[in-house]
């Protein structure tokens, strides 16, 4: 019995060593293939990395579930909105004609787009669920231009890894990796259920990515920055939400 447990101990020790070196190799591969999220540090880094890496492998090209038109929620719930700024109200008074989306960073041609510019591109729509991390969800038709379309127009450098998007709301910005930025369902969204996107839902322009929870779908987008590193943005973890403890990757 004692011999048996010693043997077991040796076997467990070897297994642990193998596991540790396996982890080291996995960490190296994960870094190489872009499977490590910017907020991988700290005590929750392990969970964040496992979730991001496994979902990136599993879902790089998968499409969010789409629904038939009769499943559209009759009363979409606009979550709480911070008080609108004076600047916003001024633009709103002008029917958002002067709203501009700027794109800079690692692009061949930095550019400015009005809402009319964005609407001039072939519109796309999908009927998908917006799900909040709190637990509630609703289905709506989201109309917009795929972010990939606009990114192709300005020409993204090959070393680009993230797109940072900034809201007109003070201190509100987030970022996504290129897999999500180039995903066909990721929209610069300007319409909802057949009309313009209501202000309560982020009009005139909202980031809409149906494979991540609500808080990644930032309202009132005014600026995009394409980058290969998130180090220079905020505290480097990729989003304001992270600074409040929320995960950068929110596919779960």
């Amino acid at each position, binding site marked *: 019995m004692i011999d048996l*447990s010693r043997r077991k101990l040796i076997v*467990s020790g070897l297994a642990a060593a193998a596991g540790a070196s396996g982890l080291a190799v996995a960490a190296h591969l994960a870094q190489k293939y872009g499977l490590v999220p910017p907020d991988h540090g700290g005590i929750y880094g392990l*969970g*964040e990395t496992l979730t991001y890496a496994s*979902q990136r492998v599993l*879902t790089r090209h998968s499409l969010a579930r789409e629904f038939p038109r009769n499943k559209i929620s009759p009363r979409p719930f606009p979550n709480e909105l911070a008080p609108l700024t004076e600047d916003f109200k001024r633009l709103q008074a002008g029917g958002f004609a002067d709203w501009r989306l700027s794109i800079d960073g690692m692009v061949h041609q930095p550019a400015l787009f009005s809402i009319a510019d964005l609407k001039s591109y072939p519109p796309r729509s999908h009927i998908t*669920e917006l799900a909040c991390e709190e637990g509630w969800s609703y289905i709506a038709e989201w109309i917009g231009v795929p972010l990939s379309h606009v990114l192709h127009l300005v020409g993204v450098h090959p070393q680009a890894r993230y797109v940072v998007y900034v809201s007109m709301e003070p201190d509100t910005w987030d970022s996504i990796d290129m897999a999500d930025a180039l995903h066909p369902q990721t929209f610069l969204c300007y319409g909802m259920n057949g009309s313009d996107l209501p202000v309560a839902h982020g009009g005139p322009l909202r980031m809409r990515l149906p494979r991540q929870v609500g808080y990644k779908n930032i309202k009132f987008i005014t600026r995009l920055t394409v980058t290969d590193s998130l180090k220079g943005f905020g505290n480097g973890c990729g989003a304001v939400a992270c600074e409040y*403890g929320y995960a950068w990757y929110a596919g*779960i």
Partner: protein
Amino acid sequence: MATLGSAQLPAQGSVASSVSTGPVMVLAPRHSALVRVTHWITTLCFFALLVTGIEIVISHPRFYWGETGTVLTTPLFQLPIPSSRKLVPTGYGYVLPDQNGWRRALHFEAAWIAVLTGLLYIISGLLTRHFRKDLVPSKADLSWRALLTSFAKPLRFERPSAAEASSYNGLQRLTYLFVIFVLFPLVIWSGLAMSLAFASALPWSVTLLGGRQSARTIHFFVSLALVLFLFVHVAMVCLAGFWSRTGAMITGRTGTRKEHT
């Protein structure tokens, strides 16, 4: 189960079967090292998941059936607790602080550790025949009389007999198998179904459960069932002798030397 018929030993014989080489004094481990380690990792993860799960529920203590549900739709039911969100009508005059950020992170991290630990347990349990030896009940265990006795004894606060200290009765075996192979998989499945990205890769994982909100409601009730199991489990441990049984799950020994001849 049927294939085991001929090889089936009496319940308390199963532990001794591996050391049946003549009369020896042994300290037969009540639980293998792997069972002990995975048990306590799972315990830690369970508490982390429970606390963080409660915190997440507090941000929206309303439950729905089907695909969608918001404060603008009729819930299936609402827990009579305050919320950490202003816009949830709770009837309470105050709003609790929002702790969802780190709670979500801990929930998923604990879930990862629990799932990986569970996988290790399942694989080793199959390889070492732990399930067959220790958890699959024998035909005799499954008679109504035996099951009723197992059920009634603890209700009369009757301590288990010495023979029962080294193995489980039929009811316990069925319960453990149910928790391991039904409740845990279901809580993992319903949890994953709530992941938008996971659902994009495996849409049937949501549709089979009846929609996103149904998955959330199922996740809640399966968690409740697991908490119920935890209470009964701890009550039974207390009845059988808290320190000796907890000690057995830590050191592997029951505290009483058993003679196998």
